[in-house]
């Protein structure tokens, strides 16, 4: 679990670091003594978990949360109990009143792992039925059963669905590895098709809608073994 610590007090940082060393799942990716530094790091890297002090000069922990483009799991730490209410408002995973002692840290980590498990389960169930593509500054949901095919064009992939076309950056092979839908099949180095959308197959090509898609010799046996040929 990629984790960072943010606290302006060196002793609190050291105490948290010591706690983290007792939890094998934690991969400590960074330690920051001010929120601005943490912000720059978070703009470049994605993390799973952050232990975040609330009261820091320049930028507070809550301001840091407000400025994040995504939300990792957050455990707020403060010597002031009043911030427990804010912790609830921000829906962070836990709030620890300082000093952060090992037993309390372990309790927080149990909550973190529980939430991590839930997030992964949701992500897995989502990956089984749909994907999201970035389009015009939005994330558009594409259920697998609406996708017709994927076509590789240079460094990009065209995603053709019943509702239109989207272009995403990436390689077809990497995409194929992330698709968990069994009806998707690579039929050519430039095409992955949804077998449920095939109209007909003729020699070395198949038709989806009005599009004729080539089937390479290498992929032909796999195509033939994937269809229910009587």
């Amino acid at each position: 679990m990629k984790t960072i610590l943010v606290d302006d007090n060196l002793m609190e940082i050291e105490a948290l670091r010591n706690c983290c060393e007792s939890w094998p799942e934690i991969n400590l990716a960074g330690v920051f003594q001010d929120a601005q530094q943490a912000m720059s790091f978070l703009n470049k890297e994605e993390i799973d978990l952050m232990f975040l002090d609330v009261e820091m000069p320049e930028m507070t922990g809550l301001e840091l949360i407000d400025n994040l483009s995504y939300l990792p799991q957050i455990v707020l730490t403060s010597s002031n109990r009043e911030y427990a209410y804010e912790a609830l408002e921000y829906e962070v995973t836990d709030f620890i009143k300082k000093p952060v002692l090992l037993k309390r840290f372990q309790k927080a980590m149990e909550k973190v792992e529980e939430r991590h498990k839930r997030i992964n389960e949701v992500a897995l169930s989502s990956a089984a039925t749909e994907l999201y593509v970035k389009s015009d500054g939005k994330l558009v949901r594409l259920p697998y059963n609406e996708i017709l095919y994927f076509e590789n064009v240079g460094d990009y992939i065209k995603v053709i669905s019943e509702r239109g076309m989207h272009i995403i950056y990436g390689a077809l092979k990497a995409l194929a590895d992330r698709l968990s839908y069994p009806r998707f099949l690579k039929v050519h180095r430039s095409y992955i098709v949804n077998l449920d959308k095939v109209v007909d197959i003729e020699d070395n090509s198949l038709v989806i809608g009005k599009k004729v898609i080539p089937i390479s010799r290498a992929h032909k046996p796999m195509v033939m073994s994937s269809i229910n040929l009587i």
Partner: protein
Amino acid sequence: MDKLVDDLTQTLESDNRGAFEFDKGLDVTFLATTYGANLSFGAKMFGIFVSSIHHELDALEASATHKDYPTIRAIAHKIKNNFTWVGLAELSTLTAQIETLARQEKNSVISLVDTLGIKCRECMPSVEAQYRSLQAAVRGHRDH
């Protein structure tokens, strides 16, 4: 190899948990619970405290002289828990009071800063002695 040494150090530290005596002038229960099984962690925490507290106290006293309440509040907030980590919970409470009074810009905070300075300096021989004994214990385990 490093892992083996770490494991051995940890085992030795655990074995000697009962053997290490914390300074009776400090909060022995807190120190034994927090550092008893990990003396090197204790040595590190005391080291940070010893190397930074004089500077922080000087800054706190200077800001009290100038009645610079925001700075008094900021420093008090930053250091208040540090006292707990070295077994001086009473001074943590005092520093928390300083933080509150400074936030309210109460004049009485100035005398409280003086009190904190005096009490902290009185405790420093115990803290420094504890730091040295923790260092010696950690060195002793390593030499073993």
